[in-house]
């Protein structure tokens, strides 16, 4: 599967946690925390569920809470460390 891009992540975040149409996900959001972007722990769990269902990507429990920014999540998913 091709690498997960930031645009992919934007789409998944909107699906997982809603799209408030304010453009909070536009621009350079790599190092913003999901919380600051408006996505709480449940939204991140929902996101990880979507990743699993769409891409077969499994983020281990102990890793998930440590992936706080888009960059950290993309790096992890694309690193090959994520279970499939």
């Amino acid at each position, binding site marked *: 599967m091709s690498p997960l891009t930031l645009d992919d992540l934007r789409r998944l975040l909107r699906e997982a946690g809603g799209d408030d149409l304010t453009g909070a996900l536009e621009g350079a959001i790599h190092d913003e925390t999901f919380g600051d972007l408006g996505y*709480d*722990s*449940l939204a991140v*769990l*929902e996101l990880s*569920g979507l990743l699993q269902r769409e891409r077969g990507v499994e983020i281990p*429990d102990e890793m*998930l809470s440590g992936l706080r920014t888009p960059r950290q999540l993309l790096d992890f998913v694309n690193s090959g460390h994520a279970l499939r």
Partner: protein
Amino acid sequence: MSADPSGRVAVTGLGVVAPGGIGVKAFWELLTSGRTATREITLFDATGFRSRIAAECDFDPALEGLSPREIRRLDRVAQFALVCARDAVEDSGLDLGAAAPERIGVSIGSAVGCTTRLEEEYVVLSDAGRDWLVDPAYVVPHTYDYMVPSTIAAEIARSCGAEGPVALVSTGCTAGLDAVGHGLRLLREGAADIVVAGAAEAPLSPITSACFDAIKATSPDNDDPAHASRPFDLNRHGFVLGEGAAVMVLERAEDAHRRDARVYAEITGFAGRSNAFHMTGLKPDGREMAEAIRAAMARAGAGPDDIDYINAHGSGTKQNDRHETAAFKRSLGPRAYEVPVSSIKSMIGHSLGAIGAIEVAASVLALQHQVVPPTANLHTPDPECDLDYVPLIAREARLDTVLSVGSGFGGFQSAMVLSRSGRA
């Protein structure tokens, strides 16, 4: 029919259906033994689920006196509730047939109602999820009964011949505590003279397991089911789903004494607050739970030094046990370090809307027997949870006043104070 806002309310009858043992005796025996009733799920095929363990009740409805018709008609949750209610009423020594029906009330808690049958029926109607437009030809008459949780309270009301106020309290995981608290209010405001109060839950069904899997709230320690529920332990990984019920007969204390009833305990205070923070998340400071505790104690006229035991919510999630520990310290001050605290969820899992009432039952029995049930599976202390959680072994203690607390999705925080009967 006079109102008495500060009146003492007595628990005069008790019925329990719990994992590890049906009936009050078996329940208390399990709790004091420190054995656990958590095991691999048998009630449905849990292959493919993240958490495949639960605390199940070995419940044979026919053996417990339900008729074939009742068994056919009633969801498991209502079966539990009915058996407990009958046991409680019998235990109370009351002849409900001789009481004025309009003075008998019912207050039952449940968080997820008739989930099991609702899901089973859905599978049939939707052809296992193939048809969004479910087939109306396949509804059975009781499908609507399963859709509304109020059915559970209605069943108990009919069984008891209750014609007074009947309530189904559904505040998530505090529903059990809140239903007993609601019963307390009904008596104090004079709306009833006898209240059959408690809670039931039979949530062990694929949809329930799946929804907790999705938020990783339940323990994935499937290889060691007996030790998977570890409240306050450093190596706790979430709660273990459970099922069960507890129902009590409540009366005003003076009525109980007048008829020479055996009084298990008195309920002296109850309060609820909400954290208004997050539907599932808990802040580490525990301030709103502390506020519920403070308010319940104030209503009971009890101070921190009066509390002899805390029956904790102790679900075994990382965040809950930390939150709750902070709440105890906040509300009891230095006394928090002296009071024994234990979580029976370590032994019987977390039965959502029922557990609060089951924990009140445990608190009542603790007062009756002067024994504090332990927290099972507590081997490795967590530095953030540094109170006396009575690890592993039950403890005899002088108990006059017990605090029982609960916390649940939606932010609900509830606390109840119980005392030994005023009559020495």
